[in-house]
């Protein structure tokens, strides 16, 4: 039994907009395994990979490819929330261990939560809620939100709004634009006319870079502060040119965290892949750590599902982001940092919410 390897199914985007995030997760996961000498709890690891193309329409089949065809012991994935939701169903049906290293869909650890599903990233709600809290803390009374009209963005806006209004502020307008549209000029005009105290947005990737540039070019950056979940400025600051300088965002990871784990991780990652790691890499790394924690508890015997899951549930992960534990719905209970962009980095300026747990509403487990 201990002889044959554990099959890990990596279902990540290898093509398209999210390809880079997919490879960061993949890299870091493998980095951790290698650091352990290529084995976890005495068992070697065999990878099976599928490009999920970030296409929900193909998600069920792709997940089946790993779970049913290859019979993987662990399913790892993915970036796109819609795809992850479909994966969760497949994994649940087969009761296969499922680790989510990025997708932030609230539902994964709320209504769709399940004993076999563990997330090492965040809920869309978490950083947004923390940001909302921080924004009221800075004395803002009114805010406008803007996001792509899709689940992740709407969830983030909800989180922000909840915290902002709990803190006595008011969201005066919630703007949305079709995904993945990048023409923001009319929204900027509207924001300028509304003159709120703050703006909260949810964008990532190319759209994020474009938005920050447009925001600055419209002259709004100096008059109306812009806040966001960290994805706005992660990996996009270079593309923003100077437009991203000083932007304040909230996320469960930041550059230059002064902890040993992080330093070691960054050095190792840089050495192996020739580029600095990012939050996605951290999440992938932690997914491997979490798996390791579970395996250690059962001595590598994955048939002891209940035991293994209990161990994972109660593990404390020594993450580069700082230690975290899991909530009862299997989502990290973690510090959310406030970061201020500087150059191409997002160094932390403090903690927006300490040990923030997702409410896990609707999770019956």
């Amino acid at each position, binding site marked *: 039994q201990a002889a044959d390897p554990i099959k890990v199914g990596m279902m990540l985007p290898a093509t398209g907009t999210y390809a*880079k995030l997919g490879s960061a997760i993949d890299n870091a996961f493998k980095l951790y395994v290698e650091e352990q000498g290529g084995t976890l709890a005495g068992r070697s690891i065999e990878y099976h990979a599928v490009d999920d193309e970030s296409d929900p329409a193909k998600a069920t089949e792709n997940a089946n490819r790993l779970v049913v065809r290859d019979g993987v012991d662990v399913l790892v994935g993915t970036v796109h929330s819609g795809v992850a939701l479909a994966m969760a169903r497949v994994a649940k049906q087969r009761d296969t261990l499922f680790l989510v290293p990025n997708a932030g869909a609230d539902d994964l650890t709320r209504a769709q939560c399940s004993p076999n599903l563990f997330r090492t990233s965040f809920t869309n709600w978490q950083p947004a809620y923390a940001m909302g809290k921080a924004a009221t803390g800075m004395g803002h009374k009114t805010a406008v939100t803007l996001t792509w*009209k899709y689940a992740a963005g709407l969830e983030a806006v909800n989180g922000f709004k909840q915290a902002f209004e709990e803190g006595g502020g008011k969201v005066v307008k919630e703007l949305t634009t079709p995904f*993945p549209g990048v023409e923001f000029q009319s929204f900027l005009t509207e924001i*300028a*006319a509304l003159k709120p105290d703050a703006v909260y947005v949810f964008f990532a990737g*190319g759209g994020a870079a474009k938005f920050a540039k447009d925001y600055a070019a419209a002259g709004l950056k100096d008059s109306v502060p812009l806040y966001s979940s960290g994805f706005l400025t992660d990996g*996009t600051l270079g*593309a923003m040119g100077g437009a991203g300088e000083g932007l304040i965002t909230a996320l469960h990871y930041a550059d230059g965290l002064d902890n040993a784990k992080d330093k070691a991780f960054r050095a190792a990652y840089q050495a192996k892949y020739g580029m600095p790691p990012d939050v996605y890499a951290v999440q992938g790394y932690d997914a491997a750590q979490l798996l390791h924690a579970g395996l250690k508890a059962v001595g590598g015997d994955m048939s002891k599902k209940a035991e293994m899951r209990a161990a994972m549930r109660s593990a404390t992960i020594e993450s580069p982001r700082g230690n975290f534990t899991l909530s009862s719905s299997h989502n990290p209970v973690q510090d959310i940092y406030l970061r201020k962009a500087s150059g191409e980095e997002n160094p932390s300026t403090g903690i927006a919410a300490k040990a923030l747990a997702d409410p896990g509403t609707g999770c019956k487990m």
Partner: protein
Amino acid sequence: MDFTTFLIQLLNAVQYGLLLFLVASGLTLVFGIMGIINLAHGSFYMLGAYMAFVLTSMTGNLLLTILIGIPLALAFGAALEALLFTHLYKRNHLDQVLLTYGLILIFEELRSLTVGDDVHGVPVPEMFSMSIPLSDTLSYPVYRLVISAVCLLLALGLYLLIQRTRLGMMIRAGSHDRDMVQALGININGLYRTVFAIGVALAALAGMLAAPISSVYPGMGGGVLIISFVIVVIGGIGSVWGALVAALVIGFADTFGKVFMPDMAGLTVYLVMALVLLWRPEGIFRKG
């Protein structure tokens, strides 16, 4: 909405419309005039944007980049035509759909292999990097206005080329009956190669010009593909003015759709297209 805001939105609409025309201009030529269904238009646009990124990081100057980039794009377009497209003119038009779809996959993958999957920025050229204040809170980037101006020039140039020169006549004739054009002593193959190359160069130019404001990222070609077709078609295939008007119409629909029907914003462009084509089944400007 107060009046100033309305005026600014109007400006946004026009400016966005012109930007759309710029993006679609290459397609106006390749699809509208030559009749090639080119789904890879977005890829050529992406190519331009990435070229802007790579070349400006070497030359540090967007203008220089454009000067280098255009001949490169022309050569690339001519090579593609000679290798691939030239074999398809006598076939069913839908074969071009298949071919150009294959090209999208190839270009996308090659981009990923050579430049990677990062998001990149291209700096706005120094001399256009300022903004003009419009209201107490809002100002307008000069570079966008420059693009609008370029776009109008381009529209004029295309119009003159297509409607006023013999070259334009020959291309249009060629889209109808290549044999007959040849039989009149015109080298239709060479002509088509040239014009296709110009079309590719236009798409790349659009990518280069738009790079500073749109940033450069994987999949950016896909985003402009459908909208470009929408513009060429609802303008009336083969009409440059039509495309310009269509681009402005879409610019308006999109801008004011976002303002007045935010919940339906994704739909507006398509709603407008459906309405226009049901009203005028051959586009706003029928071909002459």
